[in-house]
């Protein structure tokens, strides 16, 4: 723990709230994301407790609708999208490329303020009365028939959208222009490849959401029909505009998770990632193909048959890069020397759960089965397997992996492993029963359901309680390690990345001398002299 690090470079509020240091901005994002994750999680727990019984007993129907909408909006825009890029990404990207800071530090701070402003407006809308449209804001319900705080919540999300755009812009330009000498594209760690792909989606998809939300506010506030069927408007036009953003948005959420998994699998099996170039280009392929598949949300909404065929075909194609990544991660383990530290448990959990999530995505991309399964709990289970089983697990894995670098402290390995196993078990108990509920035909967003679905709902609610407790554990032992944890060395995992060649926590200017890169990434075993880069 060297003395002049970025943490003790200043203790005043000004030094924190007007910082342009990417490391401090990452810490600001950490704190705000914990708050949003707890709010969204509380809503989720309330929903699961309500669903223990078929009839309504905990909350009224209207309250239930506002709960699941709040869970959706908060988790999607205020936790999943900003989590890895704005916290781990903000902290690690400059360190990984050997730069002093991101390309536009002031823009980075503006991004945090826009995020908090958007979050504030959305929280105001939710606590002032709530929104009952679902996070998808489908018209004409959201524009003509809902009398809840839709316009205010939509404005909040609109503002937070610009925070995403600015972060994406910052990363793209930084990765292009501020790499250390000798750091060519094929020497970049795969975490940066996936963050670059994420930023491309962030920058190209979010503006269409911004315009769609403007159209909702215009139609709702000025009473002017745009999607109103009575004057010839077409509700499906809204769905096209909304899903043009919202499907790439789910790749914004999962790609950074994949990036973290590359680092963890490679570090804890002491071996180069298998097929580096394939995994790198698979990230960009997901970003590009992700824009061609949004119609699979509208197979039964009256979309033309040809459009459904094209979108179904493209949805199968976008699954191929994901399959390539999973096979390459598994192949990386071959002939490695694997250690089962907490981050590795999260990584292995990620591979299992993400694969189940991805395969059930194929069920939904398959036209005939989607007719049965869309809008049921099958869809809920699918995207939770990817978002919670994949993204949140990877976020926790990355958090534990870079915790020593960020805080200069070591966490307790025992508690971290128990939490990882408990999360894995609680997660599966919560969401696997929902696949069966979906196959049986229980629709989503149902406050009251027929009694024969109760068995699976009780199991799922039980799992949710375990998951909620398991998610609080890292808060405890990581918080404890902040003050009482052992001091962390510069390179606790003995990893070759640039970010480990600076003290933990790093000084404000990151590197004493400008690092120069001479070898490809993931050279873990010095005895295998300079392994050639397997293509």
């Amino acid at each position, binding site marked *: 723990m060297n003395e002049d690090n970025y943490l003790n470079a200043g203790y005043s509020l000004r030094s924190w709230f007007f910082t342009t240091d990417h490391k401090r901005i990452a810490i600001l994002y950490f704190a705000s994301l914990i708050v949003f994750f707890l709010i969204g999680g509380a809503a989720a727990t309330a929903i699961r407790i309500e669903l223990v019984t078929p009839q309504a007993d905990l909350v009224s129907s209207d309250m239930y609708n506002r709960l699941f909408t709040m869970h959706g909006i908060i988790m999607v825009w205020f936790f999943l999208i900003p989590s890895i890029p704005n916290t781990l990404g903000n902290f690690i990207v400059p360190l990984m490329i050997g730069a002093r800071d991101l390309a536009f530090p002031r823009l980075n701070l503006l991004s945090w303020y826009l995020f908090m402003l958007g979050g504030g407006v959305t929280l105001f809308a939710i606590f002032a009365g709530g929104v009952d449209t679902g996070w998808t804001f489908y018209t004409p319900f959201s524009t003509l028939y809902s009398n809840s705080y839709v316009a205010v919540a939509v404005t909040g999300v609109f503002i937070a959208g610009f925070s995403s755009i600015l972060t994406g812009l910052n990363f793209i330009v930084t990765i292009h222009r501020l790499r250390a000498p000798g750091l060519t594209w094929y020497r970049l760690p795969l975490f940066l490849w996936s963050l670059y792909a994420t930023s491309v989606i962030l920058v*190209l998809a979010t503006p269409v959401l911004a315009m769609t939300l403007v159209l909702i506010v215009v139609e709702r506030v000025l009473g002017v029909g745009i999607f109103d069927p009575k004057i010839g408007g*077409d509700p*499906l036009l809204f769905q096209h505009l909304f899903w*043009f953003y919202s499907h790439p948005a789910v790749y914004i959420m999962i790609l950074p998770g994949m990036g973290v998994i590359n680092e963890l699998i490679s570090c804890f099996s002491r071996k180069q990632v298998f097929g580096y170039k394939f995994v790198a280009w698979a990230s960009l392929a997901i970003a590009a193909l992700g824009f061609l598949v*949004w119609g699979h949300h509208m197979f039964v909404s009256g979309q033309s048959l040809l459009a459904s065929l*094209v979108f179904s075909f493209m949805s199968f194609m976008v699954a191929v890069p994901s399959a390539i990544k999973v096979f390459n991660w598994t192949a990386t383990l071959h002939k490695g020397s694997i250690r089962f530290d907490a981050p590795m448990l999260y990584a292995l959990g990620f591979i299992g759960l993400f694969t189940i999530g991805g395969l059930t995505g194929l069920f939904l991309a398959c036209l005939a089965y989607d007719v049965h399964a869309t809008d049921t709990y099958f869809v809920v289970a699918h995207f939770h397997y990817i978002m919670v089983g994949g993204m949140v697990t990877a976020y926790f894995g990355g958090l534990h992996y870079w915790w020593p670098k960020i805080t200069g402290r070591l966490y307790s390995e025992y508690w971290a492993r128990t939490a990882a196993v408990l999360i894995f078990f609680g997660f599966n108990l919560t969401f696997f029963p929902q696949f069966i509920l979906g196959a049986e035909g229980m629709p989503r967003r149902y406050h009251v359901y027929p009694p024969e679905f109760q068995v699976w709902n009780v199991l799922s609610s039980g799992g949710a309680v375990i998951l909620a407790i398991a998610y609080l554990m890292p808060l405890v032992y990581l918080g404890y390690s902040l003050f009482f944890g052992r001091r962390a060395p510069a390179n606790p995992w003995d990893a070759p990345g640039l970010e480990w060649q600076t003290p933990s926590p790093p000084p404000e200017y990151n590197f004493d001398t400008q690092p120069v890169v001479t070898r490809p990434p993931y050279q873990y075993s010095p005895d295998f002299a300079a392994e050639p880069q397997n293509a």
Partner: protein
Amino acid sequence: MTRWRPPLPLVAAWLVLLALLATTVTLAYRPLGSFNVVVALAIGTLKAATVAAVFMELRHRGPRTLLFAGAGLFWLGILLWLGTMDFLTRT
């Protein structure tokens, strides 16, 4: 006053743009049926290309900047093409 003259390419581009504006307005009044839309958009694209190449100095820029400028248009193409596919092919 030092002898600064507006550079020739800029003046030429400006005149070309005004000329294109005049042609697109006059052509709009000639009954070409469905061809009108095509002509209007073609001239519009021409004007946009002139502004981009000369005023935005894309003609002096390397492939990376051209790639960034083109990426926005390419994704716009995806939005418009796949977006209208549903509406055009409904029975």
